[in-house]
């Protein structure tokens, strides 16, 4: 049992955990996110879209790595575009980048503890939080192995562990299922549902199946814009028998993209 801080019981004064308005973000020179309007509440949101749709750039803007080139972006009630102080928001943020860089000499435990320290968690809470994060992603037996000895799927799970170590209110996972075997993907879906119960989880992926199975909300992006936002059932309902794809959700996905391209 622990004492509840006043900040935890304070009423939420913002209607959305993520609120982007006319958001424009540059990747190198070109605008990868161009006029995106997005509002997200708690739950698991799956971001789908073809390559180059701006998914990773959107993730980087939401994780406060890149400064938006235009529009407004509010995370957890705090403005994060421009020169705002980002510390308060960053404490409640978890992020797994698409290219997960790590320190090969560190053990899994050391690396996650280092990230927890950088996230300014209380020193006494770090060892327990690290163990819990490692257990949640199923790396318990590898906790004291060096990062360079891990396989691709294990590294991905170590990356997820460092993202969730501070119990983030906003969790951004960019391609988290790359390199996971089918069984691990099922475990990961359970973890996602668990995490989405009281925080806002944004998962960018190519796998339509993962989104339908574990997400409460689907976001479809194309060429830097929002094409569709709705429940997985909505997505399935968009697909007809004539559309490309092996599952109802895939047919819905290709139907939406095809309709958009024929309009453009």
């Amino acid at each position, binding site marked *: 049992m622990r004492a509840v801080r006043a900040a935890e019981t304070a009423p939420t004064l913002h209607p959305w955990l993520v609120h982007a308005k006319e958001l424009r973000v540059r990747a190198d020179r070109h605008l990868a996110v161009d006029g995106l309007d997005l509002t997200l509440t708690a739950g698991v949101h799956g971001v789908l879209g073809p390559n180059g749709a701006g998914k990773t750039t959107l993730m980087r803007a939401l994780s406060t790595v890149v400064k938006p080139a235009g529009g407004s972006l509010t995370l957890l009630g705090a403005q994060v575009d421009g*020169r705002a*102080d980002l510390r*308060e928001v*960053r404490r409640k*943020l978890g992020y797994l*980048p698409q290219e997960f860089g790590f320190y090969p000499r560190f053990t899994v435990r050391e690396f996650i503890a280092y990230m927890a320290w950088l996230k*300014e968690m209380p020193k006494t809470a770090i060892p327990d939080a690290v163990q819990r994060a490692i257990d949640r992603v199923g790396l318990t037996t590898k906790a004291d192995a060096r990062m360079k000895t891990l396989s691709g799927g294990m590294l991905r799970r170590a990356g997820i562990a*460092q993202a969730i170590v501070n119990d983030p209110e906003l969790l951004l996972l960019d391609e988290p299922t790359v390199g996971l075997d089918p069984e691990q993907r099922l475990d990961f879906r359970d973890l996602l549902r668990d995490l989405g119960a009281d925080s806002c989880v944004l998962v960018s992926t190519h796998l339509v199946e993962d989104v339908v199975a574990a997400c409460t909300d689907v976001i479809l992006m194309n060429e830097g814009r929002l094409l569709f936002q709705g429940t997985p059932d909505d997505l399935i309902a968009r697909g007809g028998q004539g559309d490309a794809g092996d599952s109802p959700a895939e047919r819905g996905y290709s139907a939406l993209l095809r309709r958009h391209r024929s309009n453009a």
Partner: protein
Amino acid sequence: MTHPTTTVLARYAEGGHGLDDAALWSIEVHLDACANCRESLAAKATPATTDLLDRVAVSLGQAIEASPSPTRQRTPAAAVHRRWLAWTLLPWLAVTVAVLGCGVLLDSAEPSLPSLVLLLAPVAPLPGVAVAWSRRTDPAWELIATTPAAGLAMVLRRTLAVLVVVLPALLVAGVSTGTSLALTLLPCLAFTGATLVLGALVGVRRAAIGLAVVWSAAVLLPSVAAQSLSPVLQPGSTADWVVATVALAAITPLAATHFRRLTSGN
């Protein structure tokens, strides 16, 4: 604080029959904080309760024995190897110290040349500072850049780690060649400050490279070519270096907003 009466405690020990929820909660909250009442509660425990506690103790003992032993506490000295910066900076600092060592040797071998230690002192910390805040050398930069710890405080802490090695090395080099210590250390600090201030605008790495090139072209190479020390390193310019160092150190905190994101110029 009011302690629960003995009769209330006795009833609580027997399972709390006849006590309403609010009373139970207040007793529990009180027991949480009061060792004396916990003791008197333990004295009133029913045989069924003590039996249960014994069983829990035994199974807990078995579980602890079967689980892996806790990781040992690391001493602060052993924690250094877990710092990314310590490993990354090591080669750069080793090269810096080696170059300064060569400068000392050349100074003693060729007294006719202008003091190389003086000429190298301003650029000595630049490689380390450039590495300390960089996208290229830190594999996990994208993670670091999203943490609340990222910012000017982190840059300054890493810069300090560089100076902790470079300044003593310069001090030793300066003493062993007999050059002015003020003219060895002040330019070093001024260039460190200038790298950070300029780095806020164009990126620390670019700033370090730019300053090193300007210094080499304007002072280092002409001095070596002309075989006479540039006027900016003559004893009369000490006051100017003091002013520059203090001014740059004062400006650095104003650049804090530029270090919140690790921009691509770094």
